[in-house]
């Protein structure tokens, strides 16, 4: 839940397209320490359909997907 954890870093991937969306998120995660939390802002549509799963498959822990109400979503991820 967003309230339950502190977000250490945020990254916005709404300015790039597939497959750079995932790459940008991955690079941001690499800069964190294990256990730190990243908020990834992404567009509705293909990014929100696919990026969470790619992040999961990389072994990170997904905590929450928040609808920002502006056709973007924020995926809250703990680095695994």
């Amino acid at each position, binding site marked *: 839940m967003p309230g339950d954890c502190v977000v250490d870093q945020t990254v916005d991937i709404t300015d790039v397209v597939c497959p750079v969306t995932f790459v940008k998120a991955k690079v941001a995660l690499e800069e964190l320490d294990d256990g730190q939390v990243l908020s990834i802002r992404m567009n509705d549509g293909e990014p929100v359909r696919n990026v969470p*799963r790619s992040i999961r*498959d990389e072994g990170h822990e997904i*905590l929450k997907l928040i609808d920002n109400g502006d056709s973007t979503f924020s995926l809250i991820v703990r680095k695994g």
Partner: protein
Amino acid sequence: MYREGEFRVAEADYKALKSGGFMRQKQKDNFSMRLKAVGGNFTAEQLVTIANVSEKYGDGHVHLTSRQGIEIPFIKLGDIDAVKSALEAGGVSVGVCGPRVRTVTACQGNAICPSGCIDTSTLAREISERYFGRELPHKFKFGVTGCQNNCLKAEENDIGVKGGYRVRWEKEACILCGVCIKACRTKALSLSGDRIDLDGTKCSDCGRCVKSCPTEAWKGESGYILSFGGTFGNLIAKGNELFPIIEDKEALFRITDAALDFFSEHARPGERFRVAIDRDGWDTLKTSLERALHAR
């Protein structure tokens, strides 16, 4: 080069040549040699063999067919036996043409692709071992695709197989993160209170919820979604699904056996599966396939 007499024999035997994968070219006495492919996979060793044959007996190029196969053009009539043995020595078999079960195509499936729900390469090989080359009223194509993304375009085939998951949600594991709701392309999922509701009428068995859930709260049994009567040549028609996803591979083969039997019994010579079904009835086909599905 060939001699006169040889050529006449070959002319009379043209049908046999064609059934053995030798496609007559526009250029007199040249054949484009169709190779056997299963699921579009060739080993590096096979490719080297094919390259060598093309350089030695063809004109140094090959053609990749729309059915994931390879043809070696400009093979001369007199070289056919030599070419066959050179290919065989390198583990390459010759394909087929004419009224029979053709190359079985497949995407990479779950052995390689993260989206895959089924092992398409293995299934394509099993289908090919069971049916490849079997004589029928007309050509017959199988295609196997690993998931609803349908890279292999299952419904273009006389029988298409598509991988899927029959899914169920387990409350205890769910952290209500909301990822699956967005991952679902058909909007079958919604949050109601502390539950994720699944609208079965919208669910396509795609398995994306299973693949995207971070806590494995979605469980899925993989299965096969079958379509029948697709054809994409002179006649264009999309294959139809006649029943829900089936989980059991033996049942799959009982159904495909019955479909080929139906084709043999109902089609006139030279008539595609689709045309025979359209005439003799989708219900007739469905009844015989359902009988096979439930047979033990």
